[in-house]
C-alpha cells in the first residue's frame, strides 16, 4: 500500500467529509470544488501540502500566543508544523484523510470565507481575525464546526507540548533519568 498523503478526492470531501454534508450544503458550493489544488506533500513534509502551510503558519502562533516565552525560540511554529506533519503520518488513513479534508475546507477560497469569516488569504489574516474564527468555531451551534476547532487545537497543542522546548513555560522539568 502507499505511504502517500492520505488525500482524497474533493468529491468525497463534499459528500462525506468531516465538515461535509451539512456545512457545505448550506453554503451550496458542491459543484465548484472538484479537481482543484495539488495533493502532493510540500517540500520537507510527508503529509502537509503547500496549500496547508499558510493556514497553519497563521494558526499556530495564535494558538500558542503566550505559551512561547520571550525570547521565543524562533522555530516554535516550524517545530509545531513538523510535529503536526508527523502526527498525521501516524494516524489511521481514515483519520488522516479527515484532517486533510478539514485543511481543504479552511483553505479553499469558496469555503474559507463563509465558514471562517476570513475572506482574504490566510497569510494576510490578522491575529484578531484568526482569534475571532477560532472563538466562533469553538462556541458554534454547529457540532461540525466545534469538531473542526477541537481537531485544530489538539493537533497544535499536542505537537508543541510534546517537545522539550515547550516545557520550561509549563514548569515541567522533563522525565527523570532511569
Amino acid at each position, binding site marked *: 500500500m502507499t505511504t502517500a498523503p492520505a488525500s482524497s478526492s474533493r468529491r468525497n470531501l463534499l459528500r462525506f467529509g468531516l465538515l461535509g454534508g451539512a456545512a457545505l450544503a448550506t453554503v451550496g458550493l458542491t459543484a465548484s470544488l472538484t479537481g482543484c489544488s495539488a495533493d502532493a506533500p510540500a517540500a520537507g513534509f510527508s503529509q502537509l501540502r503547500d496549500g496547508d502551510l499558510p493556514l497553519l503558519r497563521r494558526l499556530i502562533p495564535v494558538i500558542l500566543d503566550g505559551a512561547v516565552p520571550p525570547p521565543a525560540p524562533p522555530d516554535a511554529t516550524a517545530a509545531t508544523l513538523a510535529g503536526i506533519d508527523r502526527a498525521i503520518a501516524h494516524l489511521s488513513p*481514515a483519520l488522516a484523510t479527515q484532517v486533510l479534508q478539514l485543511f481543504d475546507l479552511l483553505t479553499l477560497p469558496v469555503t474559507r470565507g463563509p465558514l471562517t469569516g476570513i475572506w482574504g488569504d490566510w497569510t494576510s489574516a490578522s491575529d484578531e481575525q484568526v482569534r475571532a474564527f477560532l472563538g466562533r468555531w469553538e462556541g458554534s451551534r454547529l457540532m461540525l464546526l466545534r469538531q473542526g476547532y477541537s481537531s485544530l487545537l*489538539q493537533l497544535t497543542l499536542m505537537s508543541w507540548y510534546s517537545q522539550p522546548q515547550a516545557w520550561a513555560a509549563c514548569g*515541567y522539568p522533563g522525565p527523570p533519568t532511569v
Partner: protein
Amino acid sequence: MPVPDLFAEGLARGWKTHDGSRLEADLTLEADIAIVGTGAGGGTSAELLSAAGFKVLLIEEGPLKTSRDFHMQEAEAYPSLYQEAIGRTSKDGAITILQGRTVGGTTVVNWTSSFRTPVATLSHWADAHGVRGHGVEDLAPWFERMERRLGIEPWPVAPNANNDVIRAGCQALGYDWAVIPRNVRGCWNLGYCGMGCPTNAKQSMLVTTVPATLENGGELLYLARAERLHFAGDRVDWLECLGMDDRCVAPNGRRIVVRARHYILAGGGINTPAVLLRSDAPDPHGRTGKRTFLHPVNFSAALFDEVINPFYGAPQSIYSDHFQWQGGIDGPIGYKLEVPPMHPAIASTLLGRFGVDNALRMEQLPHTNVLIALLRDGFHPESAEGTVLLRDDGSPTLDYRMTDYTWDGLRRAYHSMADIQFAAGAREVLPLHNAARHARSLAEARALIDDLPLELFRTRLGSAHVMGGCAMGEDARTAVVDSLGRHHQVENLSIHDGSLFPTSIGANPQLSVYGVTARLSSLLAERLRA
C-alpha cells in the same frame, strides 16, 4: 545500571517471533490455538493455554516495543503505542478514546489500577444478562491467582500530591476513599506508566504472560492485523492476516494465512467486534458491536498553592467510590473518582483553550490537580451506549450516543469533584468545559456548574476503558458468546477480552479481564483436551 530488557534477552535465547512489517514473502503459520491480540485477555489466555501444552500463536497488530524503547516521551509513546496514534475518538469526534496497540496491548500503557469486578456488577450480569457461572465465588480463585501472578497489592507508598487531593478532600467531607491496588513489582514511582514502563516494574503482559508463552514454545506474529476469519460451515477455517508497515498505519501487501484448531479473539473492545464484522461472521440477531461501553470521563481541574507536579509519581493510587453505587445498581448513573497523570501534551488538550488562556493554564501546571469521574454506563436502559461500525476501509469506529440520563451524571460529577477539590484546599476550581471559568469558591462553582450547557465538544470527554460489544450471555438473541466465551454460532471461536462484558465494569477493568479470561481459558483447555 541499565534496566535489563527481558524481551530482548528472550529473543536472543531463541523465542520465535515474526515481524509482519519485514516479511519477504507471504507466510502460512499453524498452531493449535491462534489468539488475536496480546493485551490483558490475549496474554492471559496465551500463558495458560501454552502451559497446558497447546501450541499457541499470538497475533498483534501493533509493534514490538520493549523497555529499552520507553523513553518517557509523549512524542514517541502516543504515535507508536496507542490505537490510531492516539487519534481514536467516538465517531462524532467528541470523546477521545485511549487504547493500546502494541505487543502487550493496553496493559503496556495503562495506569496499573487493579480492582476485582464489583460484586454488584456480577450479580447484575446474572440477573439481567443471562450470564452463568461468573459469581463472586466462581471468580475469586481466578482473581487471587492473577493478583499473585501480577504482583497486585495496595500501593504501599504515600500517594503523589495529585492523588492525595482525593484522600484529603474525601476525608474532610466524610466520603469513602481507599488506596488503589497496583500490578507492579519494584516500582520506581516515576509516573510514566502511560508511555510504557521504562523499568519493567509494571507487570504488563509484555513482561509477564507474553514472555511466558514464548518460553513455553509459543510464537508471536506482530505488526500484522487479523483482517478476516474465513468460515467453512459453522467453523473458522482459516484466518487472514495482513502485514503492516513499520509505522503500523497501512497494510504493506504481505498476507499471512493462519490455520488453527481453535481461534480466540482478544483484540479488545471496538477491535474484536470489528474483526467479526469484517468477516461477515454469523450474527442472526445483529448483536455484534452493540452495547459497547466507555466509562465516559469528565474532568475537573483545581489550582493549589502548594506544588502538585501532577506528572510525577504513581499515576493512580487513591480512589473514591462514594458516588458509585449511591442510587443502587440501576438508579441515577454512578461514578468512580480518580486522577489522571498530567504530562504536558495530554494536559494541554484537556485544559483546552488557545492563546493567552492556554498559556496561563499551562503555566500553572505544577500547581494543578485534575480529578476524573468515570461513569458506570450500561446498567440502566437510558444509559449512553455505543455501536461499533466499520468505515469504508474496514477500520472500526464507535457510534457512542449520549443521553440525558448520562449527561445528568456528568453534571453531578462536576459538582462532586469541585466539592472534593475545595475541601482539599483548592484555591480555584475549573470544570473542564469550554463555557467554564475558574471558580474561587464552592458557591461560585455550584452556580457555574448548574449553568453549563452540557453538549458534545463543549464538555471535555474521554475514555480509557472500552468494554462490551461482544456480550456474553446464555441467550443468543442478546449475546454474541455464551458464558464460556464461545461464539453462539461458530464452533471453534472464542472471545477472551473486555468486549465480553455485558455492561461496563464500574471499576477500572484490567483485573476483570485477567480473572474472567484466565477462568475461561482453563475451561477451554479442558474442553480441547477432552
